[in-house]
Structures are given as C-alpha cells and as structure tokens.
C-alpha cells in the first residue's frame, strides 16, 4: 500500500499552522524565529512531495527545497544576530516590548 500525497500535505499543513501559531503567539523572539523555521520546513515537505508524486523526472522540486534550506540557514543567522543585538541593548527579547516603530 502506498501512502497517498494528501497525507504528506496534511502533515505539512499542520506543521505550517504550528509555525504560524508560534510566530503570532510566542512572545519570545527566539520562539518566533523557530516558528518561521517550522513554516519553511513545511514548505520544503510540500515541495519534495509534489515533486515525487507529480513530476519525478524533473529535479526542480529538490533543487527548490535545497535553496529554501540555504535561505533558512541564512535567515536563522541574521535573525539570531538581530536578537542578540536587541538583547544586548535592552536585556530583553520580548516581542511585545520591541515597539520602537510606534514610539
């Protein structure tokens, strides 16, 4: 018995929703960053699944996934650097308090 495509998609959707929840609800900036990583990985699952089930002769899906991984790594680097910088300035990384734009 083969596992249908929809299962992968459901797992990815769940993962994405967890990520969104994390981004929107977490106060800790590191948590928000982790939520973003989850969303990116959900996208990766989708990309690989669609490639495998719909167009296996072409490597575009895998290549895309690899690109996303690189971007995610870079994003994590920049994001963490920002968070460290904010922490050094304010000794706090609570997203609720980082509202300099409004002030």
């Amino acid at each position, binding site marked *: 018995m083969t596992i249908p495509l929809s299962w992968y998609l459901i797992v990815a959707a769940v993962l994405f929703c967890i990520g*969104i929840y994390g*981004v*929107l*609800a977490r106060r800790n900036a590191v948590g*928000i960053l982790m939520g973003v990583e989850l969303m990116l990985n959900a996208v990766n699952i989708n990309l690989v699944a669609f490639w495998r089930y719909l167009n296996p002769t072409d490597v575009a899906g895998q290549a895309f996934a690899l690109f996303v991984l690189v971007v995610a790594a870079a994003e994590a680097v920049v994001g963490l650097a920002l968070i460290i910088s904010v922490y050094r300035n304010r000794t706090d990384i609570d*997203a*609720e308090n*980082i*509202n*300099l*734009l*409004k*002030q």
Partner: protein
Amino acid sequence: MDQQTLIYFVWLIPLLPLLAFFTIMLFTRKHDRLSHTIAIGAIAISFVLAQIVFWNAVAQGGSHAAEPAAAVESSTEAPSATAEHSAETPAAAEGEHAAAEGEHGYPAYVESHIPWLPQGLNTLNMGVLVDPLTAAMLFMVPIACFMIIFYSVGYSNFNKKRDPHDQPGFPPHKGREPMYGRFFAFLSLFAGAMLTLVVADNLLLLFIGWEIMGLCSYLLIGFWYARTYPDRNKITPRGAAVKAFMTTRVADVFMLLGIAFLYSSTGTLSFTEIFTQEMTSQLAAVLFLGIPAAQVIYMLLFIGTIGKSAQFPLHTWLPDAMEGPTPVSAMIHAAAMVSAGVYMVIRMFPILGGTVPRGELVTFTPMIIIGTFTALFSATIAFTQRDVKKVLAYSTISQLGFMISALGMGAWVAALFHLITHAFFKALLFMGSGSIIHGVEHGMHATEHGHDDHAAAPAHAEAAPDDHGHGHDDADPQEPDMDPQDMFNMGGLRKKMPVTFWTFLIGGLSLAGFPIFFAGFWSKDEILGHAFHYPQFQIVFWVLVFTAFLTAFYTMRQISLTFFGQPRTEAAGHAHESHWTMIAPLVILAVFAIIAGFVGVKADMPGLGLIFNGPFAKYGTPFEHFVEPVLATTIEIEVLSFDWTPLLIASTAGVLGLALGWWVYGRRPLAAGQPDPLEVKMGGLYVVLKNKYYIDEIYNYVFVQPARRFAVWMGDVFDRKGIDGVLHGIADGALRLSLAFRSFDTKVVNGGADGFAASIKAAGHWLRDIQTGRVQNYLLLALVSVVLLIALYITLFS
C-alpha cells in the same frame, strides 16, 4: 609725371591730414611740439602733392584747349592694385580710349575709384576725381589750410610756457593753450574733411566731407567751451557751437533729400556719370510738381549751401562762430566750411544744363535773389559792427552772396574765381585780425601787470578767502573788463604792428576791390561785368555795385579805426607785433591776395591783357580757359568780351567807398570814448543795423521760444499727463489684476492645496491607530487578509 603716381598723390592729399588727426588724438596729444609737427607736416605734404597735381593739370590743360577730348582717365579696382595695373594702363593708351569717347568726354585729369557700398545691381563707389575745378580748388585749399595751421602755432602761444592758471576750456591768458595738441588735431580733421570734399568724385563722398566739417566747426567754435560772459545776452562759445551745428543741420537735411532725389532719378552719384548731356536733359525732362527735376534737386542742394555758406535766412550762425579761436574763424571763413558750400553748388551747376536749349545762358533765379539780397543785407550790417572779427564775418557773408548771385546768373567762372581770391584775402584778413587781437590782449596784460595784479588772478585763487572783496564777484575773473576785439578800443596800431598793418591793408584793399593791383578787384569785376552784360540783370548789377561801395566803406572804417590815429586805450598803446609764426603766413597770403587776381585778366583788355595772357589768346581769361572744360559736356558758356563800363563803375564804387570811409573815420581819428559818427547821423537806422535787423531776436521769438514752449508743453502736458498717464493707467490696471489673481491664488489654489494636504494628514492620523508597531500584529493582519483574499478568490472563481 606718371599717371599712377598722380592717382596716389590725389588719394594721399585728404588722407594725410586725416591720419594726422588720428595720430594726434590717439598718441601724441600730450606732446605739444610733436603734435603740431605732425599736423603741420601732414598738411605741408598735402600742400606739396596738391601743387604737383595742380601744375600737372595746368600742363595737361594746355593740350586740352588744343584738343578738347584729351582727357586722361584711369580707374583702379583698388588703390593697392599697383605695379601690374600701372603697367597695363599707360597714359597713351588711356588717351586714345578717351578720345574714342568723342568730344563730350569729361575733362578728368585724374580719376580713380574703389567699390565701396555694393547694393543690388548698383555699387556706390568712393573715389577721387581731378578736373579743372578740383585742380583750382587744390591750388587754394591746401595753401590756406597750411597757412592757418602754421599760424596756430604762434596763436596758441607755443613760444610761451604753460601757465598753471590757464584751464582747459578757457582762452589762455598768459601761457600756452592748455589743449594745444587737441587744437591741431581738430584743425587737421577740418583740413582733411575739406580736401576730401574737394577731391571727391561723387556726391556722397562730398557729403561725408561736408558733414565732418560740420562736426569740426562745432568742435572748434566751442573750443573754449567753459568761457562765459558777464553779459548774459552775449552768446558763449558753447552756444555758438550748438547754433552753428543746428543751423547747418537744418540745411543739410534738405541737401540729403536732394542727394536722394538725384540718386533715385539717375541711379548714380558720380559726377562724371551725371554731367553728360543725356543725363542732364533727362533730368530736365522729368517734371516734379511741374518743375524740372534738375531744378528741384539743385534747389535742395542749394538749401544745403544756404546753411553751410551762411546765406540769408540761415546766416545767423556765422557771426556767432567768431566765438571760436581766430584760426578757426579763418578756417571756417576762407579755407573750408563756407567755401565748401559755394564749391558744392559750383560743382553741381552742370545738372542745370538741360533746362535751357544748348548755348543759352543757364540761370537759377532763387540763387540770384538770395545771393544778391544777402550781399547787400550783410554789407549793411557790417558797417555798424564794433567787433573786428564780426565786421569780417558779415563781409564774408556778403562776399558769399556775390558768389551765389554770380552763379545764379550763370557766371560760373566768375563765381569760382571769386571763391578762390576771396579765400586768400579773407584768410589773410582773419589771421590779421587774430594778430591784432593778440597784440591788444598782450597790451592788456602788460597794463594789468603795471597797476593791478589782482585783476588777472585766476578763478581758483579768486575763490579763496579774499580780504580785498570787490566787484569781481559777478564777472568771470578769467574775462577781462575790456573787450580786446572791440575796434573802438584800438587805434594807432599801425606803428606798433607794422607787418600786420601792411598785410591787413592789402587784404582790405583786395576785399574792397581797389583797382588793378588786388585780386578781389578782378574777381568782383568779372561778376559785375557779367551782370552788366545781360539786360535782365540790371537791378542785380546796381545792387551789387552799391554793395561793393558799402564793402569798401566798412573796410576803410575797419582799417582806420584799428590802425590809424592815436591808441584809444592803454592796452592798444602797449600792443606789439606778434610772433613770427603768425606774421609769416600773413605775408605769404598777402602775396596771393595780389597775384591770384591776374589770372582773371581778360585777353582783350588793352595793355594788361597782353601782359597776362600772352600774344596768342584772343578772348577770355587764363582762368576761364583752364576751368571751362568742366562745363563742356553740359553747358556752353558765352565768353564775354572786355567792357570798360562795368570795370569803371566798379572801380569808382570801390574807390568812392574807400574815400568816404577815410573821410568819416580816417581824416579825423576818433578820440577815446567818442561814439561812431554814423551812429549820430543815422539814429534809429543805425540801431536796427547794429542789432543785425533783429534777425536773431526774430528767430528767437519765432522758432527758438515756440520750440522751447512746445518742448515744455510736451514735457508737462503730453509726456507727464498723457504718456505717463497711460503708463500709470496700465500699471494701475496691472496692479489691480494681480491683486485679484492674488486673492484667487490664496483662496482657491492655496486653499485647495492646503485642504488636500490637511485631509491627507487627517487620514494619516486616523490610520495611525492601526499601526501598533508590533510585528506580530502586522503578521496577523497579513494572515487574516490572505485568508480573506483566498476565500474571496474561491467564492468568485470556482
């Protein structure tokens, strides 16, 4: 003499003095000796060249009489076309060419022109032409100019040091003329302009010289521009300069009209092209308002002469021009200005050739009337004047009247002859009067030094604190109390200034027409002889004889008052002879004032005719034979045979006038302060004459005052109320309009823009509330929006 060389000489004659003017004005004005050397050198070379040209013309003129068509003509494209051109125009070949033109070829000895102003099909040429008329003038003008410029060295006190009290614009008192170099520059320009006019081969170049002379007369009459007189009615040099310039300008406008008319009817202004039989008959055939175009043109040109040669009614500037330095008066009266006026009408006379059938006498009535009237009119004024130079000024006007009248009667040769002799003796008389004035002024300074040093104090010293406060305040301290030009302040100068006396006497007798020995007699006699010969000129003849009588009378009056008797003032008693640079020109001109007349002796006069004409001539005068070919192409002149009657009448009139003058003024010399005997006898008439028939006052009342009132009215009413009113109205309207625009701008444009900005601001303010500054809020909003958009998409498109 090589033809090409002659052409260069003729070009150089006017150019040298003009170059001297520019050199002095631009470079050497500060160096007195250098300046006058340049000026005198230039005119001296011009004089020598002119003599060469003249004697060449005389030599050629001899062959001319034998073969009328032996005119030598040559034209160059440019004066710089030198060697190869002269090689291909040998005189012999040119002679043949001229002979081929037939017997009406114009008698030009030298002709050369360059294209100057191309305009469409025609080209205005600038060039030189030497025909017998020009040659005769080239004998007279350079020598007179040369003498005058040379004389100016002494007149401007070159022998003295500059005096720090002498200021530019005032006559020098004790030292050298402050603007010495400038004076010579102007005189050079004057001479150059006159020579340009004389050698010009077309009317336009003649007019250019004419106008430059107008400018020079303005500059030189007003040379002492700062001078003022205590008597406010006396005209100042500045006023006289403006008057001379304005008066001649009025006439010049008419002359320019005449030139334009001539050009439009013939298409050329070149003398040799106009003075042909075809051209003159064509000019006479065309009618303008029922009058032949030739006469209209000639009348317009003649009006130019009325202004330039100071004929009635435009004569008033000439006596006032005496305000200038005396060499200038001589220049204006003898060598240049007024001679130019007569020369121009003499030059243009052939255009009348077509108005009568060939062989008949060509006359021009307006000239007879104006000339004769002016001659008599100014002679009557002359014998009441007290100023030594004013007498000469009016005598000039009178003699010019003789010439104009003669020309009007068709006595072309006589008019030209009188022009030339008059130039010699009038230049002599003027320079003599300058010498007299110089001597009397010197006497004045001598007497002032004797007892009153203060009177000669200069202006700036006068302005300093002065304990001697006296009645000098209203008078210009530069101006002495005594008038050194008033003949009633002179007397007895014969012994003090012997050379001046003898030369002045020769000039005076020449002017008076004393028989046989003096040039003025022969030329005047020729005019009178012509008038006598034609019955229609009887009145003119008698008027001119009476004028000649008056001329002799006032000349004797002048000589008696100036030179005879005892000195009437201390200054005249201290007068002494002038510097040799002033005396030498007098002597030279005196020679010419005698000998210049002998070329006008008729061949058929018993005795003298043989002496001056040689055994072969049967009729006419040497002068007549020389200049007559000028008219050959257009007018035939009747050569009058010798007639004793007018000669005797004229001699009698001259001698009688001199005798009467002696009887009134010379027999019992006037004492100091004694009034003019004529004033006592003539009463009211004398006052009228003395005031010059009140012409100046009439002109002042009729022209000057209305012009001034009109100008004031124009200024006050027309300009200030009319034109300014319109302008102010326009400005006012513009102001109102701009105010209206301004309120529109503030309310509508600015209001709209401000309202727009304010509404944006309000919207921004309102939208501010949803900007929390929290990234998570924004993300939530984005999520909700995306979900909503997807929902919308699904509901709409699936």
